[in-house]
């Protein structure tokens, strides 16, 4: 790369010209920021302004652009220059919009702006233009694990878009759980009657598509590689193994029905006439539209009782803690099997809470009521043998009375258990170089972090249900269907389509060496300086995405295309040997150092705010848009994730005289909202150790605070800054100002 040449551009639009002394800012850019070219413009994001900058890039050799205008989140299309680094000094949302326009405040407002210009130039000075990653993927083929409705839909969607697919199915036929059903809940209006399952149609489509290869009676015995260049060993029952290469993997391994034999109190296993939901489907298939007969003696069923939440939504040992989501709709459908055949058959559904999610939900429930299916809020205590069939004892929760009712057949609405493979947090990992196949594993990944995708709650694979569905913590591997959360057929089909799109996005990004998501298109990647590494393993352990393996000497091995560019490794590294071209310990550290720290007796404290760019920084921007104000002493630096915050920044800031430091990240824990899953959690752990530093420096603990901020915290985020300003006023200025 050519010599570094900084160009600083200061906008005077949006009121900046009136509120700030832009000539002074220009001088600062030149004098302190060492910008070779400095220009001011009345309307920098206009075509003319952009042209001015581009001309400097083309003619003056500017390769570090510093823009002193609005927030980095605004006007990204206008300020999108190629082959240069871009730093944004946030003078609008960060300064004039959050400070009142009053004469006696002009001085501190100007100081804020000046600091942001210095910080922008400092960042520019320590950034380089990112080249794309070296490992580029080229494989277009998608591996779909599981041949149920979800897997088949994913395969068909991918093939239709032009991507070849291999389906690996454990059993001898396609169709999965839905293949065992007589009918399905309707997926189109009117949501009134059970309909044929989509299985037959999907199988025909799969078989007719030459781009789809199906492996039956097959499992995955090893998966290795990274996005764009996965390799999987597909083993059949006979022992034969073939190796295929893939660009992406979709895991649609589905769920297994809960084992009803764990419910003897509900009569299962004691009476043949107590069946689970799968067995009822088999009875219905046998009846094929005729009267359904009970298993014990083949008598036509005249009264059937459904028990909802059987072994579910319960804390009891062996029960499922969660709601499986589709059982209420399934029982309504199954009750209709009886009612549609003979309206005089008594069908009673004993529910605790009736939950009918999804498009057909409420209408289908009403249709059941309309067909005179009886819905009764009842808590079942036991099912015992009666004189003519199973006897159900329950408490009617509306009438508040104990009831005993005999039925010809009792159906237990049992739940679903995710086929999510081994729980990598519970099973010890293989040592590097001593990897072994596990029969319980779905993917048999040879990653350092374990063989399967991490589980979150209740054994379902982690995949953020709102913010980033389908994405797992292993880049290039996507989950869909009931393996990631309980769902019905329609939802599984929608899910499969979503996951397929994610897989395609990843394949295409891998081809050009860019990050897949969530920083889609990011060309930077972690650069590792092996010489300084102490083999401490923190980066390999803390990477939320399993992107870093270890070689036999325990040096980290970066799989760049698995990386999400969050910088959690950079934050973790005690010797600071990990960095990105445009985001490193220096790019942030130098911003911190270039803030002007006034003398202790000036009574102008400095508060450093490291704000996550995903939620906290936008929240502060929005606060500015809404005219909320915060302390003139705050200096805010956006970070990719709180996980990327290296404690050196905090230590350096304290040493150089900052009076308070606030870290703003996303919600952590099981209901995390961290875009990088573990980042804010890691930051929290690291910051708990900063207390020691504070103690060494004889500083108050209250000078460093870590908060969880949601994007909606428009009032709260500024308030926390003001609280810190107040706290600083009480504690007094830091004595470390030089």
């Amino acid at each position: 790369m050519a010599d570094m040449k900084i160009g600083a551009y200061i906008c005077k639009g949006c009121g900046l010209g009136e509120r700030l002394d832009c000539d002074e800012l220009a001088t600062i850019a030149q004098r302190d920021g060492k910008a070779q070219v400095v220009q001011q413009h009345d309307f920098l994001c206009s075509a003319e302004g952009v042209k001015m900058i581009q001309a400097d890039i083309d003619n003056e050799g500017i390769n570090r652009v510093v823009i002193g205008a609005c927030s980095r989140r605004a006007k990204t299309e206008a300020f999108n220059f190629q082959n240069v680094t871009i730093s944004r000094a946030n003078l609008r949302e960060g300064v004039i919009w959050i400070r009142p326009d009053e004469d006696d405040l002009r001085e501190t407002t100007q100081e804020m702006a000046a600091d942001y210009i210095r910080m922008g130039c400092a960042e520019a000075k320590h950034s380089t233009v990112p080249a794309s990653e070296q490992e580029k993927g080229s494989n277009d083929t998608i591996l779909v694990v599981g041949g149920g409705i979800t897997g088949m839909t994913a395969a068909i969607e991918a093939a239709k878009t032009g991507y070849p697919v291999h389906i690996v199915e454990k059993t001898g036929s396609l169709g999965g759980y839905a293949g065992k059903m007589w009918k399905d809940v309707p997926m189109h209006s009117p949501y009134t009657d059970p309909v044929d399952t989509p299985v037959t149609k999907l199988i025909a489509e799969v078989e007719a598509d030459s781009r789809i290869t199906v492996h039956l009676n097959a499992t995955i015995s090893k998966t290795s590689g990274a996005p764009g260049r996965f390799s999987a060993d597909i083993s059949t029952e006979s022992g034969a193994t073939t190796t295929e290469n893939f660009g992406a993997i979709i895991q649609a391994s589905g769920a297994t029905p809960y084992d009803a034999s764990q419910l003897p109190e509900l009569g299962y296993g004691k009476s043949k006439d107590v069946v689970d939901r799968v067995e009822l489907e088999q009875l219905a298939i046998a009846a094929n539209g005729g009267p359904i007969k009970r298993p014990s003696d083949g008598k036509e069923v005249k009264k059937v009782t459904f028990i909802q939440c059987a072994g579910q939504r319960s804390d009891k040992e062996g029960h499922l803690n969660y709601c499986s989501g589709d059982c209420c709709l399934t029982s309504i459908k199954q009750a209709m099997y009886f009612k549609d055949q003979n309206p005089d058959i008594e069908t009673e559904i004993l529910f605790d809470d009736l939950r009918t999610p999804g498009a057909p939900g409420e209408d289908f429930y009403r249709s059941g009521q309309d067909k005179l299916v009886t819905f009764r809020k009842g808590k079942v205590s036991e099912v015992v043998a009666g004189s003519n069939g199973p006897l159900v004892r329950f408490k009617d929760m509306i009438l508040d009375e104990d009831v005993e009712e005999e039925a010809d057949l009792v159906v237990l609405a049992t739940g679903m258990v995710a086929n999510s493979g081994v729980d990598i947090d519970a099973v010890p990992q293989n040592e590097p170089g001593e990897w072994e196949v596990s029969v319980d594993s779905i993917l048999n990944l040879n990653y350092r972090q374990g063989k399967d995708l991490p589980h979150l709650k209740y054994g379902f694979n982690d995949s953020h249900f709102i913010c980033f569905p389908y994405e797992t913590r292993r880049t290039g591997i996507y989950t869909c269907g009931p393996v990631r959360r309980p769902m019905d057929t329609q939802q599984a089909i929608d899910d499969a389509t979503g996951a397929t799109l994610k897989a395609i996005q990843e394949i295409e990004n891998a081809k050009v060496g860019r990050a897949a998501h969530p920083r889609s298109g990011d060309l930077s990647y972690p650069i590792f300086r092996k010489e300084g590494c102490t083999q401490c393993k923190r980066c390999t352990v803390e990477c939320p995405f399993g992107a870093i393996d270890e070689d036999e000497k325990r040096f980290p091995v970066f799989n760049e295309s698995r990386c999400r560019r969050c910088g959690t490794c950079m934050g973790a590294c005690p010797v600071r040997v990990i960095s990105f071209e445009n985001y490193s310990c220096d790019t942030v550290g130098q911003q911190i150092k270039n803030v002007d720290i006034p003398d202790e007796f000036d009574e102008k404290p400095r508060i450093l705010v490291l704000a996550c760019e995903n939620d906290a920084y936008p929240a502060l921007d929005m606060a500015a848009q809404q005219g909320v104000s915060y302390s003139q002493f705050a200096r805010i630096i956006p970070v990719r994730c709180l996980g990327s915050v290296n404690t050196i920044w905090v230590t350096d800031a304290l040493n150089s005289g900052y009076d308070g430091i606030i870290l703003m990240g996303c919600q952590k824990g099981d209901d995390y909202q961290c875009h990088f899953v573990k980042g804010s959690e890691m930051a929290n752990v690291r910051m708990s150790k900063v207390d020691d530093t504070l103690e060494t420096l004889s500083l108050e603990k209250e000078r460093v605070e870590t908060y969880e901020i949601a994007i909606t915290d428009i009032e709260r985020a500024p308030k926390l800054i003001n609280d810190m300003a107040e706290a600083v006023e009480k504690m007094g200025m830091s004595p470390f100002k030089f």
Partner: protein
Amino acid sequence: MSNYNQEMIDKYRGNFLKEVQDNVEEGDWVKMCMQCGVCSGSCPLGPHWDHPPQEIFMMIRAGKREEVLESTSMWMCTSCYNCIARCPRGLPITHIMHGLATYSKRLGLAPQQQPTAKFAQLFWDNLTKKGRVNELKLGLSLYFMNGIGEGIKTSLKMKDIGLNMLKTKRMSPMEYFGGHSCKDTKGFQAMLKKAQELEEARIGKSGS
């Protein structure tokens, strides 16, 4: 009337929900209740119902025929329509309660001493006589509906109210002698008779 009751018992053989659906005004809505209880919570006399609407609906589905029809509950309805306005499933609950009351009366199962049941009958008898309500006669018949002795007591208790109404010309003793009336009482009564006949014929054929 008790024959009618036996007829219905034989006809529906325990399927009370079906019986209600076929014979009670707006009764085909009962099955659509989703047991949220908003009706019970919204009823001004809710605490005085033996079984608030939510329970009545569940009892109907659970086949508790006599318990429902002999209940005083639906006679507690003040027709405030709060339940109708709030029912998330759009059940015409007020009308269903009126319908159940009518049906229980027709079957001869309505509680004999229930004051609203009595008053409602008095009201109907009063208005159908001449086409318009005679408030004075209605009031007096109400006071005496439980016999002469209690009637005198009630009348004394209500004396001041009556005097107040008289003083403000909102009541007149002259009403006792004739009072307001439709002119075409003959046509009016013929119409009602026909309506009654038609309704009985319809009930006879329903559900068969």
